[in-house]
C-alpha cells in the first residue's frame, strides 16, 4: 500500500466497502473494522505529514520520497493522456511538449511555430499537446512550488478534467485533522447500536469525501468531493439525529446545495468563457488577470456565497445551530471540526487566488472584514442567550469562524497565518467541546444548561478535560485558541495589509475599530464560556446527577488526544505547525497581493 494521496483518500471508502460485506448482525466486527480503517488512514496521514515536514526542512531530500510534480506529469500523465493516439503520433507529441515555461515562451515567440505544430500533430494530437503544455505551465508556476505528493492522471479527457490531487501548507493540517477526528469520532460512536452498519459506512464515506475535498486541485474534482461530503451528512443527521432531525437535515442539505449550485455556475463560467478551457485550479489562478473586474466580482460573489454558507457567515448561519442540536455527537464533532473548514479552505484555495482582482477590491475587503466582525460579536451575543448546551457551542463556532474572515480580509502574512491556524485550532477546540457536550448528554439525556449543576464534584476528571476545552476556545494564552486569535488580530491591525481609504498602504481594514469590536467579541466569549462552566460544573450537585459515572475509557480516548493537542499547539505553535504551513501561505499571499497596484511591502 504505497504512501500517496490516492490511497489516503480512498482507504476509508475501501473500509466502508469491507464493512458493507460484513453481515449487520455482528456489530462488534463492524465497529472494529471501521475503527481499524480510520486508524490506518490516520497513520498514513501522520506519515504524509511527517514527510511533508521533512520536505519543508530540506526540499532537495524530498524528491526521494514521492515523485515530484513534473516527474508525475512526464511518466504518468502524458502517456495516459495520449494513449488514444497512434504510436508515432504519441512519440511526436511527447517530444514536443515544452519542459519549462521559458521553453514555451520561446516556442510562442517564433510566430507560426504553434500553427505549424497544429498542422502536423492533427486536431487530436494538438489537443493532447495543448493540455499537457497547460499542465506543465501550471506545475511550473510559482504557486506549485510548495505542492507535494502530486497525483495527476487524466480523468474525463474530452473536457480536459484530470484527477489532480496534491497537498500544500494550507491543506495538510486540515487533512491530518480530518483523519484524527475520524478516528476519535468512530471510537466515540462505539455505543451506536441503531443501524450500526449504515452509520459506520456513511461515516467512512464522509471521511473520504472530506479528505478528497482538501486534496483536490481540480475544480471539478473539488466539486465532486464537495457533493460527496454533503450526502452522508444528510443521512447521518436525518436518521440518527435528535427529535427535530428531519427539519435540520433538510435545511442543512438544501442550504449547502444552493451554495454549491452557485459554485458550479461560477466554475462552468470560468471553464467556458475564458481561453484555456480548464478546470485545473493552478491554471485558473494564472488566468486571474484576464478576467475583467466586474466579471470577477460576479464570480467572486457566487463562490463567496457558496463558501459563506459553509463557513458559516452571518446571514447564512442559521442552519448550523439546528444541524448541531439535532446531529448525534460524533457527527456534530466532524461537522464542527472539519466541515466548517471546507468553507474557509475553499475561500483560501479558490475564491481569493483565482479572482484576486475582486478579492483585493476595496468593497469586497470591507465586506468580508465587516462580516467577520459581525460573525464574532453576533455569534457571541447569540451564544450568551442560549439555554441549550449544544446550541451555545454551535454559536461559539459561528463566533470563532469570524476570526478566519477577519484574518483573511487583512490578507497580511500574519493575518493569513492566523486565519489558517484558527481553522486548525478551532477544529480541535470545538471538537473537544462537542465531545464534552456529548458525554454529559449521554448521561443526563438533556442539554438544558439551567438544569445542570455541581458536575465537578461528581465527575472530576471529566471537568478537568472540559475546562481545558473551554479555556482553549476562550482564547486563554498557553492553549491553542490564543495563538490564532493573537496572530489574527496582529494581522488585522498590521499596517502592511491591502488597501485603505487614503491609498494602497496601511492596514487593509483601515480603521482599527474592527479590531476593537472583535476584541469585545473575545471578552463576550469569555463571558458565555465562564457562565456555562458555572451553570454546568460549579454550584451544588443536584441529586439526580448523583450516580453519574466519571468519564469512561471510550470517552477518554476521544477527549485526551484533543486536550494534549490543545496544549501542544498552545505552547509550541511554531515548532508544531506554523513552520510548515508558513512557506505555502507566503507564496499564496504574495500572489493574491500581486493584484494590488502598489505592492504592500512584505511586512
Amino acid at each position, binding site marked *: 500500500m504505497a504512501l500517496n494521496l490516492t490511497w489516503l483518500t480512498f482507504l476509508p471508502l475501501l473500509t466502508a466497502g469491507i464493512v458493507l460485506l460484513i453481515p449487520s448482525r455482528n456489530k462488534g466486527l463492524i465497529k472494529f473494522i471501521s475503527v481499524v480503517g480510520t486508524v490506518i488512514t490516520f497513520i498514513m496521514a501522520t506519515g504524509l505529514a511527517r514527510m511533508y515536514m521533512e520536505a519543508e526542512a530540506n526540499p532537495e531530500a524530498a524528491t526521494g520520497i514521492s515523485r515530484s510534480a513534473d516527474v508525475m506529469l512526464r511518466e504518468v500523465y502524458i502517456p495516459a493522456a495520449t494513449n488514444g493516439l497512434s504510436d508515432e503520433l504519441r512519440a511526436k507529441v511527447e517530444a514536443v511538449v515544452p519542459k519549462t515555461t521559458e521553453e514555451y515562451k520561446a516556442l510562442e515567440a517564433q510566430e507560426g511555430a504553434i500553427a505549424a505544430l497544429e498542422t502536423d500533430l492533427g486536431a487530436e494530437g494538438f489537443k493532447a499537446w495543448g493540455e499537457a503544455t497547460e499542465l506543465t505551465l501550471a506545475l511550473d508556476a510559482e504557486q506549485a512550488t510548495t505542492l507535494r505528493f502530486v497525483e495527476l492522471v487524466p480523468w474525463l479527457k474530452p473536457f480536459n478534467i484530470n484527477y489532480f490531487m496534491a497537498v500544500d501548507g494550507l491543506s495538510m493540517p486540515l487533512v491530518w485533522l480530518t483523519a484524527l477526528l475520524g478516528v476519535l469520532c468512530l471510537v466515540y460512536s462505539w455505543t451506536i447500536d441503531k443501524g450500526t452498519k449504515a452509520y459506520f459506512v456513511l461515516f467512512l464515506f464522509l471521511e473520504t469525501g472530506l479528505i478528497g475535498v482538501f486534496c483536490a486541485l481540480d475544480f471539478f474534482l473539488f466539486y465532486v468531493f464537495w457533493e460527496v461530503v454533503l450526502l452522508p451528512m444528510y443521512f447521518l443527521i436525518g436518521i440518527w439525529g435528535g427529535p427535530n432531525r428531519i427539519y435540520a437535515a433538510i*435545511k442543512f442539505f438544501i442550504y449547502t446545495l444552493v451554495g454549491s449550485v452557485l459554485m458550479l455556475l461560477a466554475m462552468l463560467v470560468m471553464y467556458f468563457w475564458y481561453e484555456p478551457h480548464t478546470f485545473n485550479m493552478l491554471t485558473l489562478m494564472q488566468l486571474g488577470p484576464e478576467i475583467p473586474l466586474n466579471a470577477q466580482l460576479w464570480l467572486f460573489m457566487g463562490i463567496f456565497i457558496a463558501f459563506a454558507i459553509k463557513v458559516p457567515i452571518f*446571514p447564512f*448561519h*442559521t*442552519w448550523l445551530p439546528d444541524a448541531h442540536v439535532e446531529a448525534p455527537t460524533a457527527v456534530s464533532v466532524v461537522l464542527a471540526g472539519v466541515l466548517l473548514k471546507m468553507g474557509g479552505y475553499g475561500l483560501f484555495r479558490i475564491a481569493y487566488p483565482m479572482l484576486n482582482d475582486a478579492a483585493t477590491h476595496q468593497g469586497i475587503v470591507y465586506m468580508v472584514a465587516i462580516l467577520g466582525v459581525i460573525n464574532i460579536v*453576533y455569534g457571541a*451575543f*447569540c451564544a*450568551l*442567550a442560549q439555554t441549550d448546551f449544544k446550541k451555545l457551542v454551535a454559536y461559539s463556532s459561528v463566533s470563532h469562524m469570524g476570526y478566519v474572515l477577519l484574518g483573511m480580509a487583512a490578507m*497580511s*502574512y*500574519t493575518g493569513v497565518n492566523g486565519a489558517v491556524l484558527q481553522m486548525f485550532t478551532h477544529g480541535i477546540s470545538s471538537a473537544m467541546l462537542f465531545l464534552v457536550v456529548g458525554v454529559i448528554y449521554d448521561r443526563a439525556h438533556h442539554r438544558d444548561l439551567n438544569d445542570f449543576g*455541581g458536575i*465537578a*464534584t461528581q465527575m472530576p476528571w471529566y471537568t478537568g478535560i472540559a475546562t481545558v476545552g473551554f*479555556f482553549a476556545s476562550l482564547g*486563554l*494564552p*498557553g492553549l491553542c485558541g*490564543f*495563538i490564532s486569535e*493573537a*496572530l489574527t*488580530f*496582529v*494581522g488585522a*491591525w*498590521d*499596517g*502592511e495589509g491591502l488597501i485603505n481609504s487614503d491609498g494602497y498602504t496601511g*492596514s487593509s481594514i483601515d480603521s*482599527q475599530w474592527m*479590531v*476593537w469590536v472583535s*476584541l*469585545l467579541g*473575545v*471578552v*463576550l466569549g*469569555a*463571558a458565555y464560556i*465562564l*457562565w456555562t462552566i*458555572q451553570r454546568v*460544573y*460549579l*454550584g*451544588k450537585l443536584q441529586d439526580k446527577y448523583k450516580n453519574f459515572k466519571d468519564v469512561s475509557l471510550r470517552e477518554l480516548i476521544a477527549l485526551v488526544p484533543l486536550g494534549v493537542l490543545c496544549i501542544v499547539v498552545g*505552547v*509550541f*505553535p*511554531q*515548532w508544531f505547525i*506554523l*513552520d510548515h504551513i*508558513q512557506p505555502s501561505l*507566503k507564496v499564496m499571499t504574495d500572489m493574491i497581493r500581486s493584484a494590488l497596484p502598489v505592492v504592500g511591502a*512584505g*511586512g
Partner: protein
Amino acid sequence: MPESTAAVELCKLALIILLLPLGAFIIQIFFSKKLPREGDWVSTVAMFVGLCMSLKMLFVDLFSTPTGITVQKWFPAQDSIGKFLLIGDPANPAFRLDFGIQVDNLTIVMLVVVTLVSFLVHLYSMGYMHGEVRYNRFFAFLALFTFSMLGLCITSNILFLFIFWELVGLCSYFLIGFYFEKKSASNASIKAFMTTRIGDLGFFVAILIMAYNAGSLEFDKIFESIANGTWKDKSILALGGICLFIGPIGKSGQFPLHVWLPDAMEGPTPVSALIHAATMVAAGVYMVGRMFPFFVGEGYVTGDWWGSEPLIFVAWIGGFTAIFAASIAFVQTDIKKVLAYSTVSQLGYMMLAIGCGGVAAGLFHLTTHAMFKALLFLGSGSVIHAVHSNEMSKMGGLWKKMKITWLTMGIATFAIAGLPFVLSGFYSKEAVLTTAWAAAKMNPGAYTIPFWMGMVTALMTAFYMFRMFFKTFHGEPKDKKAFDHAHESPWTMTVPLGVLALLTVLCGGFKFINKSDYWFLNRMDSEILAPYTHPASVNATPVVDDPEKHVHPLPFTDGRVHMQSQKQKEFREAYGLGHGTVTYLSMGAFLFGLLGAWFFFGPNSPGSKKDMLAPEAPLGKALKPLNHCLVNLWFVDAFYYAFFLKALHVIKDISYRFDKYVVDGIVNLQGVLCKAISSLVGIVDYEGVDGTVRGIGKTTLSIGKFAKIFQTGKLQQYLYASVFLAVGAIGLTVAIYLWVG
C-alpha cells in the same frame, strides 16, 4: 549581542526558579492522591528552593555593586521551540516572538518578593487549609499561580508578559472559586476573571500598537524604536500608553475596574494574602514600572517625563483610587473587606508614585506593602480561623487570647499607617509622597491634586487601619461564645506571621545596613535611567554631587556616567528639598489618624463609650448620607450591574430573537413560500388543465343526452323532422336570395 556567560548563568537560574513551581504543579495534578499528606509539601519545598535561589541572586548580585546589575538577557532556544512565533522570513519577519529571559534589579526584587510570600503562604495554608475537601487541588493552583507570576516577572517581551498575565488571571479565577459549591464564590471568580479580561482588552490593543509600530515586542527593542524614532506613528503613542494602563487598571484593581477585588475575598484567606495582597495585584505595578519608558514616550528622550499624558493619566487614576478606596474602607465591617480596600488604596499609591516619575519609589512601596499586607491578611486569617467568622462585630478583645497574632498584626498596622522612622511603611510612603511633591513642582497643573490626594489618603489609611485593629483586638468581646473558644493558631500559621513581622521591621532598616542613602532607590533608578537614556539625548549633563540638595550621582562601577537632562536635574533637586516638608506632613497624618481612630474606637475611649458614631447620635446623623454612600461602595457596583449586565442581557436576548425569528424566519419563509407556490401550481394544474378535459367530457355527455331525445326510434318522426328541415332550408335559401338579390 552575544549573551555573556554570566548573563546566561543568571538567566538559567531564573529559568530554574520559573520551572520549579511548574514541576510542582504537574506532580500535584497527576500524582497528588498517591503522595503522603496529598503532596502539599511538594510545592512548599519547590517554593523554598526557589526562595533560596532568588535570595542568592539578591545577596550575590544585587549587593555586588551599588547600582545592582545591568540588564542580562538570554534566549533559551531561539531556533527551535524557543522561537515561539515567526511569521514571514526570519531576516525581515512580519511578526516575531521569542521566549526570552531578562534578569535585572527589578526582576530580582520581584523574584524575591514573589517566592518569599508564596513560600510563607504555602507554609501557612498547610495549617489553614488542613482538612479541606480539595486540599491537593489548592496547592496545585498555588503552584501554577506562582509559576505564572514568576514567568511574568522574568519574560523579556510584552506579549509573553501578557500570556503570563492572563495565566495569573486564570489561577485567580480557580483560587477565588475554590469553594465553588457557594454560588457567591463562583460569581466572584467570574467577576474577577471578566473584569481583568476587560482590562486585558486594552492591554492587548497596546500590544498590537507596539507590534505594528515598533516591529518587535522585546522591551528594549520597543524603547529603542521610540528613542531612535523608528516608531511608525507617533500620534498613536499616547493612545498606546493609555491602553496599556487599562491592563493594570483591571489587574491591580484601580478605580473603574476595582469592583472584583473586594469580592475576591470569597476565596480562602491564604489566596487573598498571596494573590490579592502581595503578588498578582502587584503585577500591574511591575508592568507599569517595566514599561515606564513606553508610558513616558517622547519624554524619555528629552528627559521631560512630566509632560506625557499617559503618565499623568496613571498618576490621576492612582491618586483617585487611593482616596476612593480608603473612603470605602471606613465603613467595612468584614475584616477581609477592610484589608481588600486598603490594598486597592495602597496600589493606588504605587501607581501615583510611578505616575509622578518615581518608578523606584513605587516599587519600593510595592515591596514593603507586599510584606505587611501579606502579614495583615495571614493575621486576619488566623483570627477568622479562631473566631470562625469574618465579621468584626463578632471579634473584640482578642488580644488576650491570641498574643502572637496580636503582636504581629500590631506591627503591620503601625507599618501601613506609617510609624515614622521605625518601620518600612513610613519610608516607602514617604518616598512616594516626596516623588509626588517633586512632580507637583515640575508640572504643577497636572500633579498638585494627586499629591494632596496621596497626603489625605495617608491620614485616612492610619484611621481605618487602627479602627480595624481596635475593633478586632481591643474593647469588650462582643460575642461571648466566639471569644471563649478562640485560641492561638498552630505553629505553621504563626511562624510565617513572625517572619513577615521581622521583615516589615527590617525593610525599614535598609537605611542603616549599608549606610548609603536610598539603597533601594539607587538600584531601581539605575535600572530606569542607565540603559535607556540615550547618550545623545538632548542636553544631557553628568550629575554632580550636591549634598545640601541631596543630589548624588549613581555610583556606577562599570564605567557608565550618570547622565541626566535639565528636567531630571530639577526633579532631583525638588525631590531632595521635598524630603523635609513631606516627612513632617506624613508624621502629622499618622498622628491624626491614630488619635482619630483611638478616639472613636479605642478600648475605653470617650467615642466608644458614648458610641459617637451610632446613627442616632448627632455626629452619626450628620454623617448619615456619607455613610450611606460608603456602604453602597459609591454605587459603582450597582451602576455596573444595572448598566452593563442589564444591557448585556437585553442585547443578547434581542440578537438571539433577531437570529431566531428574522434570519431563521427568512429561511423558513422560503420553505413555506415554496410549499405555497407548489400547492398553488397543483391546484391550477388539477382544476385548470384537468378541469377542462373533464369539462369537455361532461359537455359531450350532456349534448349526447340532449341529442337522445331526437332519436325516438319512430320512423315517422324522423320524416316529420326532415320535412321541417326541408322547409327551413327552402326558407333560408329564399331569405338569402332576397337578401342578396
